[in-house]
């Protein structure tokens, strides 16, 4: 018998546009395929409904990864939000999505009614999405699943800028993205990446911060080698 796994679609790791038939199900029998974002089953075929790169996670998970400036909240994403308003029960946080998100005042490690954190408008927060669907406002939390703080919370100092969602994913991918690796060899800085297309950078000297943020912004469309070359160029100009 041939391998039970369905043959991978020829489109994997390639770009697809809406309407492309990604898999033909008529040949496969008795196999389960899991579909993620951007794919839809039409009778016997699987078609893409959004444009982007088709990804496959063995054995049988497919999804389409696209990069946009707007963010669609989904659960378990770590995002960077800006506090817009405070209510008795929640902070209203802007995460670049269609709605404002709620961050309950108690969703902090060891949070009780007595030690509610005081965030003024414009505070930058690193949080995790707990509830997200298209109709309601998403909900955030500054604790991880076990209840620990785990780096969530307010980010102080530093500088924040916007990128596309694809760029954020690239920055968070492992092995480390080439531009971060090249920058990290020479400079020391701290960085927090939100999957909603926001990046925060901090370093002791302002010109390091400026250099890092410009390098990241410019590396979006460059390949790995070009990214390293660009970083070298920038570093040489500084020194």
């Amino acid at each position, binding site marked *: 018998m041939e391998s039970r796994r369905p043959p991978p679609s020829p489109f994997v790791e390639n770009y697809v546009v809406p309407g492309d038939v990604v898999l033909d199900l008529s040949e496969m029998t008795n196999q389960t395929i899991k579909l993620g974002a951007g794919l839809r089953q039409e009778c016997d075929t699987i078609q893409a409904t959004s444009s982007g790169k088709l990804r496959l996670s063995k054995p049988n998970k497919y999804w389409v990864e696209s990069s946009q400036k707007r963010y669609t909240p989904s659960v378990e994403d770590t995002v960077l939000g*800006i506090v817009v308003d405070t209510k008795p029960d929640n902070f209203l946080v*802007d995460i670049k999505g269609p709605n404002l998100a709620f961050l309950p005042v108690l969703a902090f490690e060891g949070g009780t009614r007595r030690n509610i954190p005081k965030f003024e*408008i*414009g*505070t*930058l927060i690193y949080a995790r999405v707990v509830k997200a669907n298209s109709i309601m406002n998403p909900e955030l939390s500054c604790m991880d699943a076990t209840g620990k703080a785990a780096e969530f919370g307010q*980010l102080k100092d*530093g500088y924040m800028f916007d990128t596309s969602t694809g760029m954020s994913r690239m920055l968070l991918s492992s092995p480390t993205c080439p531009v971060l690796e090249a920058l990290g060899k020479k400079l020391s800085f701290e960085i927090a990446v939100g999957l909603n297309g926001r990046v925060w950078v901090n370093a002791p000297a*302002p010109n390091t911060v400026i250099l890092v943020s*410009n390098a990241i912004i410019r590396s979006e469309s460059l390949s790995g080698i070009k990214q390293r070359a660009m970083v070298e160029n920038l570093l040489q100009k500084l020194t």
Partner: protein
Amino acid sequence: MSMDQLRWRPTVNERDFIERALQSDLRVDGRNSFDFRTLKITLGREDGTSEVQLGETRVMAYVTAQLVQPYRDRPNEGTLAIFTEFSPMADPAFEAGHPGESAIELGRSRAVDMESLCVVAGKQVWSVRVDLHILDNGGNLIDAANIAALAALSTFRRPECTVGGDDGQQVIVHDPEVRDPIPLTIHHMPIAVTFAYFGEGNIVVLDPTYKEEAVMGGRMTATINSNGDVCAIQKAGGEGVMSGVIMQCLRIASVKAADITSKIKKAVDSYTTEKDLKKVKRLPVSVPQKIHVTDVTMENKGDGELETQTQTAKTPSNVQQISKDPAPMVEASSEEDAQPVTDSSNAEAKSTSNPHGANGESDEAQEIGSPKSLKDAIKPKHKRKKKSGRS
């Protein structure tokens, strides 16, 4: 409530950081305090349209004109009106009002000659209308809108009209195909230069970006032309600034204004050249190959940039191919002038005909065995320049 949600707010971190960086003379995008962002002017599809890109800010301008009755107190002058439109794709929450300043400055200055727009005194004058569309708000809309409007006005051509008819009062507007439309008379180009102030007026930067604008304490726009005349200064609210700082800003602004004026002029010139080229090409289609073309076309375009018309000669001796565009470069970016256009079209020539050391000289272009008509068309202008035989 939803407008508030949509408006982007700077975080506390950014505000502090931008100010701190400016204390050490660093701008977030790596520019110097008095550097403009890259300016790109695209003139292209029609006369009187332009698109300007200043860093991330994009503005498009469109000029139209129509005959109207003049104002009673100015029966000899036409009018110039500027309208601005904001689309939500430029900025999610646009508040009307501030780019209107640039509209006011441009209109109030006497840059465009109004009396030449008069057709019949007291009855009919041309009313020129400039529509500015903001496509992307990346900061400093006033400067970008100003440059777009100037570029569009420089390339705008209004239809020629004569007064005639039975009673001598009827105005006949000529079709552009019949008589060439004429350009507007522009006396000078007022260029707006915007400064942003931070930290109690100590720190000044030029051409603020979107984030710098959100964090700045005050803003001043100085409108200067290349002669050094200050046309307007506008400072609406914000922090107070010392007069010494203002004088320094004006000096810097005059330098920058000269720079930008030359960029606009270059872009407009190369655009005009392109258009003239296309006009010359139109004729040979109806003219048989052997006959040398009449000089009619030459007289109309009495300006000096015709040496670049050699490109038309380079196409092979096929009448059909002559009418195809030599160089599809409709875009005239501010850094290029007509020269690269010549090179690229000669490169094209190389592929179609036997290779020759094309270096933009008209002789070599003419050696491709092009029809006599085109060569003769070019000859009158080039006799003085090219002494060697064109054969």
